[in-house]
């Protein structure tokens, strides 16, 4: 396969990965790693490096819009970034010592879990009860809604922090944003309103990915020939996804389609990992 054909295939694939990733809120890394490794037989280290770079591009791009709207809780994000960056550094360092087929299996398992979690019903919750640590760390905040500004409190700061370390390790190890896990921690443990937890998670993903990308960059995992079409394709795809999302509300069936696709790709990863082909 010539370089130009290889680049075009990745561009198209990355475009759809970015599009679907932004429509479902799972991010583009989920489809791009299986695409590169299973279809194009790219070494999984290069795939992870390229995916990390695309994660930084999409999360920074969309975070820019959310931050301006004032939904993102920047103090909460900054505080939890201590956990995610420390985790991401650890993940990137141990990635070298883990055989690639184990990485593929783990990625497959995480993909399936995230796809199932994306099908969950999301109820907007607002906690009013004040909590000692959250008050000390000035994490309680407010966000704008259609019915005016809503104040909310944050619970179980310690529990959320620990899950964030784990989310960081997965991000550094597998080259994904691990947004689903971050949202789960903020949503279910810290009891933060859903809109705030998704935008704050997105805000943190870029820094988390950067903390492991600096390791991958120096190890030579980020290859320009692969990263270039991946990052451009995913970013343009994510942009068109956000345009579609504004116009249509019915992304329910799309979540199901995507969940099926992800489970299929994930089982391929697990299968190839077990027989040692990756």
């Amino acid at each position, binding site marked *: *396969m*010539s*370089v*130009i*054909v*290889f*680049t075009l295939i990745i561009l198209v694939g990355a475009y759809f990965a970015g599009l679907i990733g932004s429509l479902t809120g799972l991010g583009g890394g989920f489809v791009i790693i299986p695409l590169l490794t299973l279809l*194009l*037989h*790219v*070494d999984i280290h*290069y795939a992870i490096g390229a995916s990390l*770079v695309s994660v*930084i*591009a999409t999360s*920074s*791009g969309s*975070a*820019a*819009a959310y*931050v*301006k709207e*004032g939904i993102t809780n*920047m*103090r909460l994000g*900054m505080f939890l*970034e*201590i956990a995610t*960056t*420390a985790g*991401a*550094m650890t993940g*990137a*360092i141990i990635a*070298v010592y883990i055989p690639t087929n184990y990485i593929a299996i783990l990625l497959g398992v995480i993909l399936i879990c995230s796809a199932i979690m994306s099908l969950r019903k999301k109820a907007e919750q607002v906690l009013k009860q004040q909590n000692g640590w959250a008050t000390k*760390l*000035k994490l309680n905040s407010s966000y704008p809604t259609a019915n005016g500004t809503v104040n909310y409190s944050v619970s179980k700061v310690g529990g959320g922090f620990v899950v964030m370390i784990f989310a960081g390790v997965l991000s550094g190890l597998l080259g994904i944003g691990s947004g689903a896990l971050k949202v789960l921690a903020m949503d279910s443990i810290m009891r933060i309103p859903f809109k705030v937890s998704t935008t704050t998670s997105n805000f943190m993903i*870029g*820094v988390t*990915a*950067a*903390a*492991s*990308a*600096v*390791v*991958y*960059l*120096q*190890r*030579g995992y*980020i*290859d*320009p*020939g692969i*990263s*270039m079409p991946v*990052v*451009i394709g995913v*970013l343009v795809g994510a942009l068109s996804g956000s345009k579609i999302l504004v116009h249509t509300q019915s992304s329910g069936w799309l979540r199901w389609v995507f969940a099926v696709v992800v489970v299929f790709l994930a089982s391929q990863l697990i299968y190839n990992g077990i027989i040692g082909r990756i």
Partner: protein
Amino acid sequence: MQAVIGWVLRIGVIVSICIVFFGGVIFLYRHGHEIADHKKFKGIPDFISTAGGIINGVFAFRGQAIIQLGIVLLIATPVLRVIFSAIGFVLEKDYLYIGISLLVLLIIFISMISGHAG
């Protein structure tokens, strides 16, 4: 402050993607008809594996060096965002969060050094 941070993120992404795209065009023009082979991990070409190498490559107009420059800028974008947040907390005299921002920067810095050693 929120407006400034939003602006830093947006400009960072736009500038780095444009550089990646520009480098990509040069790279494909020069190497488009070679055979793509990424089956085995063998690192990246020597001339872009150091900061000095990338800069020299950019001045020599080498596509891969220009792409890598864009990617380095992209990785630097969220880090720059943390620096700007820290400045924002300095202006608000929020000492707790100045400390937290600096701690995040320190972790990223340690990560960078550990990658160098590994």
